[in-house]
């Protein structure tokens, strides 16, 4: 079996993950063995500045966050294509430059569009 190569590389990652999990789980177990348990009805109430908790927190929140998630999705997928391009950049000098220019230009339109639509302005609810 090889000590170099892709498989071994990811074996290393897997092993790292495993050791990391051990590092994370051991304190949890250790702590569960030694902590004092308190009793009381209010112990598990969520914090609300000392007031009694009102209702669940799983309610509607402003849509602005959601829009950011949407443009991120649209944008990030495109940005990923830039990475392989960067890797082989310069193999065909002039063509590469023009192509990157076109790609980045179209990509920028996404930002220009969102900018004009006022996505980046924080709208106050009336």
């Amino acid at each position, binding site marked *: *079996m090889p*000590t170099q190569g892709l498989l*071994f*590389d*990811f*074996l*290393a*990652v897997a*092993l*790292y993950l495993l*050791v*990391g*999990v051990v*590092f*994370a789980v051991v*304190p*949890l177990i*250790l*702590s569960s063995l*030694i*902590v*004092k348990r*308190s009793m009381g009805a209010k112990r*598990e*109430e*969520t*914090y*609300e*500045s000392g007031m009694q*908790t009102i209702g*669940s*927190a*799983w309610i509607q*929140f402003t849509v*602005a*966050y959601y829009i*950011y*998630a949407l443009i*991120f999705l649209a944008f*990030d997928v495109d*940005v990923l294509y*830039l*990475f392989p391009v*960067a*890797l082989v*950049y*310069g193999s065909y000098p002039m063509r*590469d*430059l023009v192509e*990157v*220019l076109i790609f*980045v230009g179209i*990509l*920028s339109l996404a*930002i220009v569009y*969102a*900018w004009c639509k006022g996505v*980046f*302005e*924080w709208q106050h609810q009336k």
Partner: protein
Amino acid sequence: MIMWFAGLILLIVKLAVVLGFLLFLAAYLVWVERKFLARLQIRYGPNRAGRYGLLQPIADTVKMLTKEDTIPDGADKGLFCLAPAVVAMTAMLMFAVVPFGPELSVFGRKVPLVITDLNIGLLFVFALSSLGVYGVALGGWASNSKYSLLGGIRGAAQMISYELALGLSLVPIVMLARSFSVVDIVQAQERYPFILVQPVAFVIFMISAMAESKRIPFDLPEAENELVAGFHTEYSGIRFGLFFLGEYVHMQVLGALVAVLFLGGWRGPFLPPPVWLFIKIILVVLFMIWTRGTLPRLRYDQLMTLGWKMLIPLALLNIVVTGAVVLF
């Protein structure tokens, strides 16, 4: 087969050393931060536990271990328990691709001083940094507390926005180094560190990295005077400790990334390579602490404006300019 086992044992030794060092340093970074911040604010900082408060990290650990950790009523138990682990794990795993020295030769065997030299190292880092968002968003949501929820969604929106700038700022680096492998990128900086040829990318990366680590001036997900503690309001005891550990490991990893991508990694005169990497990491981390001591928190719309209207267009421009300069 014997070679394979030798490789495996070597790997385990490297893992133990790196992880041990990472966690030890994370504990002491807390001390460094408190002490340095205190000095910036003309205070003493921790000085009760041990000389100069040097035993403070141990005292903190013991305290967190012995504190009861509660799961709030109505929380999503599974996700609630998973979230801190996700934050800590993703931060730790990123260190797997950071080289801390040149290839050594021990008993005729080649020993690369990196846990694993993935040929897609940079993409691996991005993937993990994206996964880190889950820890924050899910932790905030699963707590079933209003403060946590607000912190969680703020964190998610902020981190994905700055991740774009982070990724885009590194495209020119890949163009120059012609490789995703972090080892190759350090190799490519043999003559000069990339900060000299890519100062704009460096600034964008640095700002986005600070935003990714959710520290002042970008600490809106945990803004303590509006959201109590933001996404980890409901966490206590050792679970909170894991979030805390994750944050400090993340700081180190970002320091390490800045060091290997822009400052030439382990390169430097006189001192051994790992020491140079360590010095560079500490310098970046100290800079981040200094920033925390100096700047006020941004408003949320300012934060988003900075990311989307300044950093991302600038990063795109930087790609095109670098593309042109590389060719001519």
